[in-house]
């Protein structure tokens, strides 16, 4: 009785959604040229292609420019606390396997204040798609260094340049037990961005996609080289992997056949110095998922609750009459 009712309702009429069905009534408020817009478009396209019912889809985020994304989706959204998108999403998914859960997080949100949750979310490997909008800077709070900021970057908190090498979210993720899907995309190749997010969504387990996202406001021209010179991008291809459009294939000739089960190569690719790997670095659908492992075997009906409570009470009950029940149960 306390189980989700619609889980047992059949959808009688199969509806087909349009892109507009996923657009909320709020116009995105990102700067012109912000990579977040491309990501939003890719997600809306995915929702349509996969025909995800808006009411069954939840976008969870933290705080940051990127974390505004749920506001622009016509779906359920949870724009919560800075750094805590992942545990919120886990809580949502835990007892609601019927919901499609997407997490949108920034490089500060995920890799700085949320780093512990990030590590542990990878390990829980719950069924959700995690999009790291990595613009290498704190956008919303107006230009502070993030853990992924390139060395030397001048920001408001590093007026003399960031002094450390950036954290590599891919390498860290690949070091975590139970990692099951790691990919990298860039906001400026929309076809691949879509394709990678789609693969992530279809993956069983937690799919972690780092998206290199342009922030013209504070990191203007940062990716100009990469955007202009296709050889700087290395596309990872494999059997049932990315579907490269002929055009993308023609432009991006720097391709590598990569078996996504090859962890050693995935790690090496993650830290390619001067090229940007794009595609699925690692994928292992056989890794067990916490939500599957911990799914209750039986629904918690009132009768079951009554039975279990009685069992427990029996163990510690003093009955009015001595010997009224067998001693073990007394």
């Amino acid at each position, binding site marked *: 009785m306390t189980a989700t*009712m619609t889980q047992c309702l059949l959808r009688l009429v199969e509806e087909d959604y349009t892109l507009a069905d996923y657009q909320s009534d709020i116009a995105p408020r990102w700067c012109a040229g912000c990579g977040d817009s491309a990501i939003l478009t890719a997600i809306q396209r995915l929702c349509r292609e996969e025909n995800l019912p808006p*009411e069954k889809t*939840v976008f969870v985020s933290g705080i940051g420019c990127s974390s505004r994304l749920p506001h622009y989706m016509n779906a359920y959204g949870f724009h919560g606390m800075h750094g805590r998108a992942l545990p919120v999403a886990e809580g949502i998914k835990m*007892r*609601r396997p019927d919901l499609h859960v997407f997490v949108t997080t920034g490089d500060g949100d995920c890799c700085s204040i949320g780093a512990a949750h990030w590590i542990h979310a990878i390990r829980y490997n719950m069924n959700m798609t995690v999009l790291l909008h990595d613009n290498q800077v704190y956008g919303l709070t107006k230009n502070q260094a993030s853990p992924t900021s390139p060395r030397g970057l001048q920001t408001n908190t590093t007026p003399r340049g960031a002094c450390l090498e950036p954290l590599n979210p891919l390498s860290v993720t690949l070091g975590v037990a139970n990692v099951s899907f790691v990919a990298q995309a860039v906001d400026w190749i929309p076809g691949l961005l879509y394709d990678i997010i789609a693969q992530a969504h279809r993956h069983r387990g937690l799919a972690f996609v780092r998206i290199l996202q342009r922030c013209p406001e504070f990191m203007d021209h940062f990716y100009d080289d990469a955007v202009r010179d296709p050889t700087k991008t290395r596309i990872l291809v494999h059997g049932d992997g990315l579907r490269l459009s002929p055009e993308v294939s023609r432009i991006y000739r720097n391709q590598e056949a990569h078996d996504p089960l090859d962890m050693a190569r995935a790690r090496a690719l993650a830290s390619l110095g001067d090229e940007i790997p794009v595609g699925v670095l690692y994928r292992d659908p056989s890794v067990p998922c916490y939500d599957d492992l911990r799914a209750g075997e039986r629904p918690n009906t009132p009768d079951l*609750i009554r039975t*279990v*409570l009685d069992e427990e009470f029996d163990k*510690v009950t*003093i009955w009015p009459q001595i010997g009224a029940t067998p001693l073990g149960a007394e």
Partner: protein
Amino acid sequence: MNRQASESDGQTRRRRGAGKAGARAAPGPALVLDEHIVEIVSDSGEGAQRCGQSFGAIAARMGNGIWTVEIIPAEIRPPPRTIAGASGNRVRLASHRVNNGGGEADLVVAFNEQVLLSRLRPGEIKPGGIILLESMWRDDRDETIAADYARVCDEIRAAGYRLYEIPMEAECIKFVPDPRLGKNMFALGMLCGIYSLDAGMARAQVRFVFARKDPKIIELNIELLDAGRAWAAENLDLRFTIPASRSSEPQVVMNGNAALALGVVASGMEVCAMYPITPATSASHYLSDIFEKVGCVVHQAEDEIAACAFAIGASYAGKCAVTITSGPGLSLKQEGIGLAVMAEIPLVVVDVQRGGPSTGQPTKEEQGDLLAACFGGHGDAPKVVMAVSSIEDCFYSIITARKIAESFNMVVVVLSDANLATAQQPFARPRFNEDWLAPPVNQSAVPEGARPYDWDPRTGLATRFIPGQPGGMHCLTGLAHDRLGHVAYDPEINEEGIRNRSRKLAAFQKTLKTPPVFGGDDGDLLLVGWGGTCGAIEEAVETLRAQGHRVSSLHLKFLQPMASGIGDVLRRFDRVMAIENNWSDPLDDDLIGEENRRYSNLAWLLRARCLVDVDCWGEVRGQPLKPGAIVTAALGKLEQT
């Protein structure tokens, strides 16, 4: 209050060799007592805990009122024979229902003189009290040990205690090869004999406790039990009876954390997200064991912040969740609690309080988190704060908390404490009621035009939309938002949101009844308390009234908001004093005056709300307040001019 009575029926008479330490006059008829407090302490691992718990259980089964309290060492494996290492149990048993651990102990069984000192030094044993001490140390090969033992014995006798040196190990070795094993059952037997507890029931209890063990082991333990009883009958001039009357209703005996865990199951919640922390954790342990049986989940998160966020996520998705923690965890969850308040997500937060601040005294009793629960987060974050006042209350409060949380889309903080967490007491076996549970998650389509924050101006309430509800799609946010849930920075919209979140608390407050006064309706002094001190305060009031003092007490379950009429009650008394297990500056300190005194938690709240000059008294000794200490404090207050 002592009366003569005939010997208990089931008393065993089988004898096995008298004790080495001089046998005394055979006991006369048992002295009838109204109540006694018994402690049993040993090094950790020697089984005093099990002995004490079994003793309490047998007495409870016979129909005595009992209250047992664990004596826990702070370390995992403290060194043997040390004051800090004492482990055991205190059992208060009475002819009537008891609601707290009481005052000093009347009788103590100690396995060595050091653990005994841990009870003697802080004044936990009644002057002139009875001490049953393992005597083997007198002849220990280690001379310092023998000397220590002898010195302590001399001191004890000199101080007027009734010391019995008992060759427990020597007696046990007659039955078991390793004398350290089974000593606790021998002690249990002695205690059952001394207190005239039914031998059959004692044996049944031992069988129950060792149910999963080899039958041989069970029999050996029963032999030791019987031997203890026999030895006591033979050698000790101690024989008491505490009249028992079995309740006509079934009773359950458990500690507060078990009651909390069962309350979670009974409330219909499906998710408990937690991070281990003493003394809250044992509730999660028990829940981990049973929650899966009803198809539900205890999630051990990576930290308290994640636990709180996880619970918020589950609640948001329609499965109202609880997160259980203790002091430091409460501090860490403040941001999450604020989000739940802001976004109006139902959430139950249980704080099993311990000694603070900081890591403080993890295993010890204190009631120091009330103000943090009320005011801990930044900004205006109205939420319900309630406290459990007994073990039974632990069970029902969780059910109530879930209901309030979901009815008002509100955070409800439930405060328990380290004492209730581990103390055991019988209470009426709850009868399951389907109304306790939440209705099924609403997945029906949202009516056209409905908005996720359509606050009702009369109550501040809005119907929330749960993922899965067609037409209810919106983005929840911790930012200021309008009725559509859209981020909004307009002055009016911000004020409207804050107004309605605050209004819900006011609306909920209207449902609260003024708590009843314990004692008389007016008088010279009113003691006001909250939480686990209820039993001790009311016992103190009974004592004071029996002495002819016009003292009463008021116990608050809801601390935020507070029921109406409390100020009126306060004003009917000449003096009002909050009694709490937390800090308040004592006025006898030269540095302290009315201008700079820091009041206890509840005193702050009452003073501000009612503008009554509420005085306060409390202790932060890591122990539950004793009725006697409260009596003394009240008498002091009555004497003030």
